[in-house]
């Protein structure tokens, strides 16, 4: 029962040393695939901003859904999220001619997909779980003119993107800010930002707000249970925190005699 018998105390020091080394060597692992990345435009998603969500839904369901689908989402799941009732939703945003309980699928006819697009654009249901809001925001606002591409445009965060610049009529065209950088370890001209080239139907601030609203909406559909999580989480975690304290007290109570080393206090083994 005497504690000093155990020759301990040197391995925590060693452990700390090794953890430090691990952190140091971690850098070595990635050095050779360096790619110059453009800075992402910061954005804070606010799911309480219902008018922004409604505006995002309007643009997503009328513009994006021309090509993209949101197969995981039903129209009927949106009104509550957007702070509307069914009548308002059907009047203001609508269901693209589909049934209210249908999933959101691309309005592009399959014949057109086969004739022109060939490859289906990615589904947007969980795009905000695949990509961060800041990435999406930067992506939506960072198309630039690149004559070497079939669509005539490229994107700073998604190099050689296949999507055409559908925002050009609103945002206007943009030109890249190029720097000499690295792409997968090799020297290359890398676009790290964009500058306006032509004027669109919106001002820059208006367009940024529209892009922000689309990101809000995409984030909301990708995280459909944020409210339940926020409501339930503290209770469940709190319950187990309380239980941790209680069970620790019970443990102390039971183990008092074990730790003090009192012998023969159990009544077993007779």
């Amino acid at each position, binding site marked *: 029962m005497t*504690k000093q018998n155990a020759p301990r105390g040197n391995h925590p020091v060693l452990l700390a040393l090794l953890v430090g080394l691990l952190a140091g060597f971690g850098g070595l692992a990635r050095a050779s695939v360096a790619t110059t990345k453009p800075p992402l435009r910061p954005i804070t998603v606010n799911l309480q901003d219902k008018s922004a969500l409604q505006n995002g839904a309007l643009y997503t369901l009328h513009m994006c859904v021309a090509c993209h689908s949101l197969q995981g989402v039903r129209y009927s799941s949106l009104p509550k999220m957007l702070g509307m009732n069914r009548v308002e939703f059907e009047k203001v945003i609508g269901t693209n001619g589909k049934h209210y309980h249908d999933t959101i699928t691309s309005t592009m006819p399959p014949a057109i997909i086969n004739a022109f697009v060939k490859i289906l654009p990615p589904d947007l249901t969980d795009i905000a779980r695949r990509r961060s809001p800041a990435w999406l925001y930067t992506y939506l606002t960072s198309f630039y003119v690149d004559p070497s591409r079939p669509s005539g445009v490229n994107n700073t965060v998604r190099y050689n993107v296949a999507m055409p610049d559908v925002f050009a009529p609103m945002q206007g065209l943009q030109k890249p800010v190029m720097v000499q950088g690295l792409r997968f370890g090799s020297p290359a001209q890398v676009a790290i930002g964009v500058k306006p080239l032509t004027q669109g139907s919106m001002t820059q601030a208006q367009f940024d707000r529209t892009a922000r609203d689309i990101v809000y909406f995409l984030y909301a559909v990708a995280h459909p249970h944020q409210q339940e999580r926020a409501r339930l989480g503290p209770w469940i975690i709190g319950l187990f925190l309380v239980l941790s304290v209680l069970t620790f007290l019970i443990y102390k109570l039971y183990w008092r005699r074990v730790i003090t080393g009192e012998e023969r206090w159990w009544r077993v083994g007779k």
Partner: protein
Amino acid sequence: MNSSKQSRARRVFGWFDDRLPISSLWRSQLTRYPAPKNFNLWYFFGSLAMLVLVLQLATGLFLAIHYQPNPHLAYWSVLRGIQRDSRWGWLIRDMHIVGASAFFLLVYLHMYRGIMYGSYKKPRELLWLVGIFIYLALAAEAFLGYLLPWGQMSYWGSAVVTNFVTAVPVIGKPIATWLRGSFVVGLPTLNRFFVFHVFLMPVLLLALVLVHMIALHHVGSNNPDGVEIHENVNESGWPRDGIPFHPYYTVKDLFGVSVFFVVFFWFVFYNPGGWGLLLDKLNYTPANILHTPADIHPLWFFLPFYAMLRGVPDKLYGIMAFGGSFALLACLPLLDRNPVRSIRYRSVLYKIDILMMAFSFLWLGLIAHGFATEHNMVYGLHVTEVFYSTFLLLPFFNRERSTRAKVIWLVAAEAVVWLIDLWMYSIHAHGWDLMLLTDWIPTLYLLLLFGLAIGFPALTRDAQKLPERLTAGGIFH
């Protein structure tokens, strides 16, 4: 038996007890099962792993009810049917996802506990070996389950792993086709993976866990001091350093469970994807057979093995390298034959070696987390050599060695490492600069270990006086 009213319950219970060994099992396995009284924090993880197993079975049952094992339906049956359409489906699925990672974390900690305190030594060799089989079954279970959501990473991860078999000469390809039921991962693969994941592997896991428990209760628990409590019993045959499992360890484990659930549910509610570590972000894209991702890698718990596989520039040898690491774990009782069990009473250099074992494992994971560049592959190879040497050097510590023996060990170990490097270089020449950039890692590790052993013989000396009784009790000792 008295005939008062309260004895009716006793009589009913007695009827069952006469026909089933309820009270005798309760006594022999719980209230009169002697456990060492000095279990510390490291002894939480076994019981927690059992808890997570039950949790995975319970959540998996509900997921299986709603899941469609068909490539056309699978992805949306998970991402829409379970995550969005069915009530509480998101909670059950997130618990299953976090549970899978928790299971591995707990099992890794549990295994490392066994390594630290020599719990694989006589008479617990079979207990350890059954544990290794549990780990293998768990790995298979996780791999099979990962295909089911039919996301991009699910699909391509399974494609990579089912292609392992093709490394076997001549018969490899037909066997791979037979295993997949198809030339590529497809409907037959998904069907059989589903059945294996929800039926075969869970049954196997439960059976193995039962055998693990039976073996444990037969030989008794080891403890942080490595003292055999059954060798010191009182006049009634009860170990002097033993306490009944129930209530002492049940109340201790209840505390462990509560703390575990705080962390577990934090992840479930606030971070189910675990920064892309618990569920790969690419899995939010449906599987596309025509689009291979630029970077295919497994979830965090398989990353170290992936680094070993990638590090060796030949498919068959690579598979042997990572399969060999399981064999090393299984062979631990053969490699470490030093009579001293616990790391507390082992030499300083042995402690460094055991720490390096865990450290190089994490290090490999970090390397495999990066892209599959030539540099990272060679880097992985060299850290694999360190990981292997932490095991293969264990016989060195079995007894004290003469200076001559230490020098021979050093020269032999360095020679083996360099010969392996030359061999690998002959398979795939990637430039000496790349090779030398990280080759100092195993070289330096061996040099450091044996250099210290030669220069400071005291560092290889185990504690001269082992305790006869346990030294302390309680969680934080």
